[in-house]
């Protein structure tokens, strides 16, 4: 015990010293039950949460194992209260079980009558359960399976779901052995992708967290191949839907006829159907008009792309899909609305999570150099800022005219490298585009125009592209290696991470990617930037901060 790599804090955080010889063993041992919270360079922070402990129970770990792991790797004695709490928390799981009853269908049974009485007495379970069969058993409406599980979780008595999954309609899917995009060169899943697919399949449902550019689509494809059933894929927008289709055609044995797109433009239902969140959440006369898609086929697998963006109505719809296998994919499961827990409870627990820096070390994503450039506002602008109304302050600071000059310097510095300039405010972006003489893509740009510009960017015809927040997600710009962020949506951590993700595809020549955030000094812009950077900083991306005046003038 004297010299372990782990320090267990009373507030239920676990500190893992990365440079310790036993660090890897400890990491593997605690991964099943502790959530990785921060992964900066020296000490990684994990946290014990009830949810994490229950997920560990669901995965077959018991309290004794958890306690033993903590004791075995801990440097100092582990707080007694924490050990007691771990045992207590884990013992709450599984007192209630959801299972299939040969006569009554889906039922909730209990090994502890007091617990059953307690949850049935709660107002929250009213309407979710049906008649009581005997003292230990109560009927559950099959459509409320997800909702009930969520409520029980909130009540602190998570149910063990033994009701299983429907098999779904069989449809043969396999990974193609060769990659047509690379002259039919053979390829296979990377080790971490393999592990992610395994982790997901073993757990039944859940979320896989991988950095941007680490090939989440391929994990999706791998899961589909393993399932070999009809699959519904939910994505954020149409561009992303097309990219999914292209990637599936390239990586699997699926043909174009087998893949359908269900979007604003096209409504195809095929064995593999890719739908956008937007079309599903479209309401006409107060009714979701496209809900039937969810029941259009007997889907064996539902994939949620970018689960961190999952809109509220989809949460509700997902509650009804509990009998189907669900896979959530994301790079950044941080939500400023704090609804991470709902993602975990409805889609499933985190099944795989890798620190960004680990993947970078394996060479699957490009190393990135993050720099915050601080611009000192000129006297006049400072005065303007100081006297502005609070609600205008961010916009005023973020759109500081001085930023144009800096962007120009930065673009000049990376002359010839494909460069993205990302911002929040259209006025600012248009001004920048004018200033640099570059093309611009905003929400107003037509899909065709977007495709054209992206293609031109890919081929190297144009090297500088100004994009609004439409480019935050799921646009595949393989060789972009420089991103300059001039403004963002306040303190959004995941936006910052996703934007960095735009340049993290490994470069052919192994170049380092550069990410610049241009920030106005001593304003809310700086405060928001500090918050935005937190996720990446916690993943080990240390921002260098430079003064605008120190940038080399070209």
């Amino acid at each position, binding site marked *: 015990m004297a010299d372990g790599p782990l320090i267990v804090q009373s507030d239920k955080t676990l500190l893992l010293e990365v440079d310790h010889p036993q660090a890897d063993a400890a990491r593997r041992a605690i991964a099943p039950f502790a959530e990785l919270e921060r992964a900066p360079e020296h000490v990684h922070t994990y946290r014990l949460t009830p949810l994490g402990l229950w997920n560990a129970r669901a995965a077959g770990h018991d309290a004794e194992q958890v306690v033993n792991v903590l004791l075995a790797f801990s440097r*100092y004695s582990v707080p007694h209260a924490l050990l007691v709490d771990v045992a207590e928390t884990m013992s709450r799981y599984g007192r209630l079980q959801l299972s299939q009853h040969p006569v009554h269908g889906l039922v909730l049974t209990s090994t502890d009558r007091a617990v059953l009485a307690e949850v049935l007495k709660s107002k929250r379970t009213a309407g979710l359960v049906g008649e009581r069969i005997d003292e230990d058993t109560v009927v559950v409406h099959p459509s409320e399976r997800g909702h009930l599980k969520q409520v029980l979780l909130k009540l602190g008595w998570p149910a063990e779901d033994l009701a299983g999954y429907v098999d779904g309609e069989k449809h043969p899917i396999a990974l193609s052995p060769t990659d047509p995009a690379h002259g039919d060169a053979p390829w296979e899943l990377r080790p971490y992708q393999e592990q992610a697919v395994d982790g997901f399949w073993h757990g039944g449902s859940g979320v896989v967290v991988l950095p941007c550019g680490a090939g989440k689509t391929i994990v999706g494809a791998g899961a589909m191949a393993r399932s070999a059933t009809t699959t519904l894929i939910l994505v954020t927008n149409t561009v992303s839907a097309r990219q999914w289709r292209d990637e599936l055609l390239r990586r699997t044995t699926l043909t174009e006829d087998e893949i359908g797109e269900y979007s604003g433009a096209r409504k195809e239902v095929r064995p593999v159907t890719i739908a956008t969140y937007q079309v599903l959440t479209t309401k006409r006369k107060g009714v979701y008009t496209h809900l039937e898609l969810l029941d259009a086929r007997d889907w064996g697998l539902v994939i949620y792309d970018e689960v961190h963006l999952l809109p509220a109505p989809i949460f509700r719809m997902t509650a009804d899909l509990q009998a189907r296998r669900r896979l959530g994919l994301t790079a950044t499961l941080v939500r400023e609305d704090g609804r991470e827990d709902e993602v975990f409870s409805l889609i499933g627990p985190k099944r795989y999570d890798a620190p960004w820096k680990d993947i970078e070390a394996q060479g699957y994503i490009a190393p990135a150099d993050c720099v915050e450039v601080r611009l000192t506002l000129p006297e006049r602008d400072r005065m303007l800022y100081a006297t502005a109304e609070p609600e205008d302050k961010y916009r005023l600071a973020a759109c500081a005219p001085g930023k144009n000059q800096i962007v120009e310097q930065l673009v000049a510095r990376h002359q010839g490298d494909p460069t993205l300039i990302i911002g929040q405010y259209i006025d600012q972006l248009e001004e920048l585009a004018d200033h640099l003489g570059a093309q611009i893509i905003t929400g107003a740009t037509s899909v065709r125009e977007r495709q054209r510009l992206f293609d031109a960017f890919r081929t190297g015809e144009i090297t500088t592209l100004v994009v609004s927040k439409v480019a935050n997600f799921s646009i595949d710009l393989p060789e972009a290696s420089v991103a300059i962020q001039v403004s963002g949506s306040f303190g959004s951590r995941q936006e910052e991470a996703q934007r960095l993700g735009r340049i993290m595809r490994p470069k052919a020549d192994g170049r380092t990617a550069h990410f610049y955030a241009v920030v106005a000094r001593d304003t809310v812009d700086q405060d928001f930037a500090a918050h935005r950077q937190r996720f990446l900083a916690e993943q080990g991306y*240390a*921002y260098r*901060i430079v003064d605008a005046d120190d940038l080399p003038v070209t």
Partner: protein
Amino acid sequence: MVTFSDWLRARSDEQFVALLSRRGDLASPSPSTLLSLAARATSRASLLRAAAALDAAHLTVLESVAVLDALGEEATADRVVAAIAAPSAPGTQDPPPPDDAATVRALLEDLTTLALLWHPTPGTYRPAPGIEETLDAYPAGLGPALRPQDTRPDLALLDSPDAPAGARAILTALQWGPPVGRIPASTDSPTYTPTRWLLDHGFLRQVDAHHVTLPREVALDLRSGRTHQGLPPAPPLPIPTLTPETVDAESARAAQEIVRRVAQVISLWQTTPAPALRSGGLGVRELRRLAGQLDADEAATAVVVELALMAALIADDSGDPATFAPTDTADEWLAADLPTRWATLVAAWFASARAPWLVGTRDDRGALRSALEPELHRVWVPRLRSQVLRVAAQAPLAAVDAESVVAVLAWRTPRSVPPQAAVAALLHEAALLGVTGADALAAGGLLLAAAPPLTVLDDDAHRALADTLERTLPEPVDEVLLQGDLTGIVPGRPTPELEALLADAAEVESRGGAITVRFTAASVIRALDAGRTAEDLLADLARHSRSAIPQPLDYLVHDAARRHGQVRLGVAASYIRVDDPVLLAGLVEDPALSALGLFRLAPTVLASTAPASQLLTALRERGLAPAMEDAEGKVVHSDRLTPRVRVPGRRSRRASQHSRAVDGSPEHGTGGALRTDRLQALVARLREQHQLTQERRAQGAGSAGSLGGTGTPSEMGTPDPLVALGLLREAAADGHEVWLEVAGPTGALTRRRVRPLRIDAGRLRAVDVAREAELTVAVHRIAGVEPVADA
């Protein structure tokens, strides 16, 4: 046949020392004569005190002897054993197992040592005079004895055919007490007839319209002559489940935490002292605010501030308005190392009578009790604390809860069972202090449990206490791991130097085995405020860091330093403003104006530490023709500025009642263990004195022979009321007669020969032998008592 006093006098020196050391109240203040010692030993207060210290087994034996004695039985050791110890085979008359018998005999001896039992004749026991009054109303669950006119019913009647069904069942229900039953209200009740039958045959006695009692003799017959069903077994102690490492680690954790919190209170209150209520306490809102700052709940916060008060680290400054502020001892305390600081807190807690758990409850007048209130102490707290610690000490490595402690104490001192809430609160305090770890007594706690109760720990004990913590604390770490996300981690307990640095420059995010901190602009500015410079700070951090300082941190510190102090402020009482700088020439430098404390803020602005009126006069004298202006720059007339006299403090200053609160604890040591040699000296002195009295009595025997007369108070009588009462009690117990001197309504003394019957509630009931009438005398009117010399 001897009296109690005779018996007591005949005790050996060793026995006296044993008695005096076990019943401390007999020795202090030192009794003047053996007679007064005997009297004191039979006084109600002393007997109650002695009985309160008895455990359930002792009380059982004492009760048993008292009951047997009251029935006129000879309480020999064998009889008492038979009356108490259960027979070897249940339901038989077999002699009890030898172990139980031996225990009972040992208890008899022990009670004799305590002079609660004595030997009227060798081999028999009798309760000390006055004991019966200290026992329960129904000793051993037995009702009152039969009256002389009653006949003792024969139990065989119960088995006769005319005994109604259920009669025996009723007696069985009352047999072991309580011996009072209710008469069925309705004649239809199935128990009505048997009850009536039992009453008619003398098995029960009616006490009022609704109740019956089972007479003592009948109950004893039913119990086959036994007074008890056996010796009450001691309750089990909690089972050890913890390892010493866990207990040590938990206690060390709590110790560090409590010291940190107390230090935090001191540091918070030295910048802004907390206002005191008029009653002298800390207001609820203030407490809640502090709880927020300490990140603790209110109950724990109350304990923290109370501890600071117990250790005299904070005090009511008696200012106006009164506030709580750190004392000068606090500086000393802050400078000490962690174990010493902890030992100071623990020692103060050990000796204190403060009762922090009462905070938030209401007193008799319905007023909310607040923390730090002067009245928030209870004299019994230190004793109870010792008892609780001692119980915990008997269950090493076991998690001890209030319930089990109370169960043990209820067995150990059935006469004074502590409230469970107080025990729970004391255990909670012990846990917060690290006196226990994981609810089991830690090394420091064992030390306290071994210390005599109600004492102030001396320096050695203090050091020993500090050592227990020193041994369990992990090695301090002098290194912080600085990371790019502006966090830092000390992988262990930081050295004091490092801790001070981080306390200055960073926010703590998580504590435990390690400390994680986050550097923010605000925290760095705080460090700069504390007098560090950016370079100092970075150099200090670099010295403690294994790796180089991450660039973002370096930048943060420099950026904060750049902004720090951009806005300056100072203190001035008035200012001078001009349009033409020439007017100000020479003013600042003029030594004649140095009293004004002038200093230049800008070429056209001077500030002064003198009030505006004084400045005005001075400038007028210089012929500058100044005009006074208000905040908006309007000229105001100077006569408006005549200072008004302030009526000093309307509210009369609160009496400084706090000096009492600061060490609100009662005097210690009065009941503490008296040193044996002191006691031996005392016994020797008493003997010598007794000898003298005896001699004097022998000399005056001739004149004292005429005791039968009335009038002159005798030398043999006693003016000491305690001794008088003792003599009376003794006489009442033995049925002897005494000479009683009573002050009449006019103050004249009358002298009567009486046989005392009972002393109760401040009254003596006695039979006047000459007039054969009963009389009742208030004890304060008794001027003297003198035993009648044996005829």
